[in-house]
């Protein structure tokens, strides 16, 4: 830095004394430009993931940084190592960061009372208990031990829809639990 400090920072001075007389480059660079760096470099960790949208299964890299005490996803982009996608993504895959961080995401439990006109908040724990009660009750009320004289040991009291957007492990537990409960009305997007 020039001994006269402040004057040395003035681009016009740098134009006169440096290699960039016309002020098109080095003379006019600002502190912000000098400090430029990709925000992924300040990430605490990078996790390899798979895009949640379609069945191609493109590889994704998820960058996480710790900001004021909480972890936050700062970038999601393609995983160049993937033989399926070679680091590339489609518009939906490229929007994954917004998918997981956008304010429109509903992250607290909502409960609608029968006939009510609005949602009301409910604790997760309370909601889980209420749902368990309703499942046990519905199962009991609609249990079918036999059908047309043959043993079926099932309930048609409650149904389940969904699974194509879930992990295999999640599908496995749902199918395992539902079947053990005798609930046979279980379906997912593979059928629509």
């Amino acid at each position, binding site marked *: 830095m020039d001994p006269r400090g402040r004057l040395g920072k003035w681009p*016009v001075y740098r*134009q006169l004394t440096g290699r960039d007389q016309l002020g098109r480059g080095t003379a006019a660079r600002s502190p912000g430009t000098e400090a430029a760096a990709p925000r992924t470099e300040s990430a605490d960790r990078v996790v390899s993931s798979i895009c949640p949208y379609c069945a191609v299964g493109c590889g994704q890299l998820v960058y996480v940084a710790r900001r004021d005490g909480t972890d936050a996803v700062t970038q999601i982009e393609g995983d160049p190592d993937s033989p399926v996608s070679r680091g590339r993504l489609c518009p939906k895959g490229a929007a994954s960061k917004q998918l997981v961080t956008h304010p429109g995401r509903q992250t607290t439990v909502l409960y609608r009372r029968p006939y009510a006109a609005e949602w009301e908040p409910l604790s997760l724990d309370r909601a889980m208990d209420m749902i368990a009660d309703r499942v046990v009750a519905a199962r009991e009320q609609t249990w079918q031990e036999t059908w047309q004289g043959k043993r079926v040991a099932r309930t048609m009291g409650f149904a389940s829809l969904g699974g194509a957007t879930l992990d295999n492990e999640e599908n496995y537990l749902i199918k395992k639990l539902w079947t053990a409960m005798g609930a046979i009305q279980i379906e997912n997007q593979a059928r629509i």
Partner: protein
Amino acid sequence: MSEERQVPEAEFRSYYGRPILKVTRWKEPHLPAYLFLGELSGAAAVLAAAAAATRRPALARSGRLIAAAAAYGGAGFLTAELGRPERFVNMLRVAKPTSPMSMGSWILAAHSGLVSAAAASEVTGQLPVLGAAAGLAASVTGPLLATYPGVLLANTAVPAWHTAYRELPLLFAGGAMTAAGAGGLAVSACRADRTDFDAARRLALAGAVMESAAGFGLERLHGLSGEPYRQGNSGNLLRTARFLTIGGAAATLAARRSRIAAGAAAALLTAGGVCAKFAVLRAGVASARDPRYVVAAQRGGA
């Protein structure tokens, strides 16, 4: 739904009729006002110096005051036009000859300093020699302040402005003389001593002639690029400006006697100048918005 963009098809193709260029972000009244005040300040400074040199102290005094006021008025509009006005000082961050606005900023800064000094010494009576020197120097920065905007507009991708790089500086130089002349008329009309009045009148007349000639030159710009100066709202405005200026010139001729005529002449000339600036801005907007001008110009139909 997009009827108004329905441009005649005949010989050219575009992307759904959408503009190729970006329409300027410069707004009314800011740009026209800055152009007019810049011209006024520049020419007034020259007038003041000429007046001082020809022992017309009253006119010199008025000239310096007008030059200072117009300079600050212009700077005010320029800063208000910025997206980030609080960073107006960044205009002096670099000195880039490739940027007319960079050069213009330095000219404006110097000119404002000089006319302020001249005006200050005029008002306070202090340091008259220094004041006179500043006034004299301002007669160098003044003309540049008046005509550099011609380069500023011409040095863009807007076909109507770019092809007018000869006419625009002349239009603004003429406009400057007219503005200063009109100012002189207005100021000296109410004084008994006629010589100030005659000089201002001659100046106004010369300015009117030059401004009208340049305006006429704009309309005659051959090819599609000049079309906005002939047609549409911008074309009408340019013709109106010329009528006002010519009217003003006529009034100036008749203004030898009555003060009212002098006032009318000053008003008409000023109105003509301002109107010409609006016309030039709107011509630029029309030229950027219609892709035909870009395509035709670059396909050789310019």
